């Protein structure tokens, strides 16, 4: 660890910049949803922000369920004795 150089994301400012860009981009897609008239194939799709909510919810659900699953299926690294 003799590396004294500072890299792009060593500055918290740059990390914040990335996060805020993402938040703004999310907001932009929601605003576009208000003004846009979307053609839909499925009734759920016509709900405002359906895809946004689904994306956020699916991700949270995935992590949550996996944590539960971890208790059930996770074993130590040398579990298989081969």
């Amino acid at each position, binding site marked *: 660890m003799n590396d004294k150089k500072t*890299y792009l994301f060593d500055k918290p400012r740059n990390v914040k910049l990335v*996060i805020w860009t993402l938040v703004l981009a999310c907001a932009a897609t929601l605003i576009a949803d208000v003004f846009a008239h*979307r053609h839909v*194939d499925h009734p759920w799709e016509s709900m405002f922000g359906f895809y946004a909510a*689904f*994306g956020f919810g699916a991700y949270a659900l995935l992590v949550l369920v996996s944590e539960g699953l971890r208790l*059930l299926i996770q*074993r*130590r690294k040398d579990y298989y004795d081969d």
Partner: protein
Amino acid sequence: MISVAPFLIFLVGAALAMVARGRVRDVIAVATPVVGAINLWALDGSAPMTVMLFGHELILVEVDRLSMLFGWLFHLAVFVVLVYNLYRPTKLEQVSILAYGASTMGAIFAGDLLTLLLFWEGLGLTSVFLVLARGTRKAERAAVRYLMLQVLSGVLLMCGIIVLINQGRSLAMAPLELEGLAAWLIFLSLGIKAGFPLLHNWITDTYPEATETGTVIMSALTTKTSIYCLASLFPGTELLIYIGATMTVFPIFYAVLEDDLRRVLSYSLINQLGFMITGIGIGTELAINGAVAHAFAHVMYKSLLFMSMGAVLYRTGKIGASELGGLYRTMPKTTIMCIIGAASISAFPLFSGFVAKAMVMSAALQGGYDWVWIALLFASAGVLHHAGIKIPFFAFFGHDSGQRPKEAPKPMLIAMFIASVMCIGIGVFPELLYDQLPYPVTYEPYTFEHVLTQLQLLLFAALCFVVLRVTKLEPHERPSVNLDIEWTYRWLLPRAGRWAYVKLGYFANHLRQLSQVGTQGTVWLVKLWHGPGGLFARDPLISMASLAVVIIFTLVLLLDLIQGY
């Protein structure tokens, strides 16, 4: 123009590479897929090539739109991987990649099932060396398990073919109804190689154990060859829709929990195969086009991701998410190309996944498979988690592991660059791919609603990641084993075997003791009766016997006398 069977070129290439050395061998290896591509170009639209073998006519090569597209794809994949391999070229890897390429070409251009069988077996036998080449004991064990399942798949296919021949049915590579023994045997055989649920585990068991290069080419060829065969033999088989949907969903949980990043990508591979299989199951023109387009795009971005992880493994000697982090500092080019692969698999607009994946999802909605559509949508968010975020984040960003490895070697960078260009090229100019698909394409990927909804899905899923990260709820990775169906044959079966051996041993012991007791008893009885002083050895008995003889003799004499009167 003259053309030969595509597999021949690879076989000759493999043979030449086997005798050549050094730079010459490298040139032969890389040139083989190029010569193959020229041959493929000349092959387009040619008549079937047949040979007679044991009274059966084998259709060695039959060209159609589907096999041509897969042919181009696999030539490209083999080429890219052989370039990638130049960072540390070994004869074993180069020869097996070429022979493996020959098997794949043979399989996708096979005009009948017997020819397919020949190359189907070749797929496993040639690729296993890419696992063995890793040289670790773990790889060796995984290679044996791999070979067993690959051979099982071949045996099932062979049994299916035998039943077909017995029933006097055609062996042509034409759609089969999923009815009767033959079709089910063939279906299961393809299912093993395509990673159907419960038959999937060899993928995640073997691929992470192969060499840096081996994993890349294996992830590209075997499973997609099976996808090609499913599309040729079982299009529109409804069962495939549910099999495919299951495959998109269950691996993403494993991918979340897994620490080994190449194993994360292997689970992700099953998830991707699920999309293709769902498309084949729906079977409409849009769905089949979607499945094939997805296969094409997928080979490029999945190879790219595996290549970037191979570079990380090569430079750091580590591949666990818990051991890596912060590598963007010294491996910026690898980082950027990994992100291109991640954006492609997550289906961000302007990347290849975006123009491919949505076709299957549209087809699911149009076919009225609402729940399947929901499953695919959930799986799409899952892909963003494990392949879109986890792979680049834990390897190149995240916590600083303190490692400052060198940038990936040049050959690796060139290979990744070619794959990156393909990913973006297909994403920006989808017609290039669409024009090659089996059916005419009317699908328009870049509509306002498609771009907007896809961005919403992905950006908000990414936002969820940020929220979990900032609130420290995002789980930490740790080295571990996550139980999967392989538990049955890696844990249960050996133990059951040992248990049975011990129990049978007891039983055998008891049997032996019992027989000993029996023998001893018999000996004792014999001794008792016939031994010295035994019942039958006593002197009085001999006199008794002579007395009996005398009595009987007298009786006979008396009877004779009585009869005389």
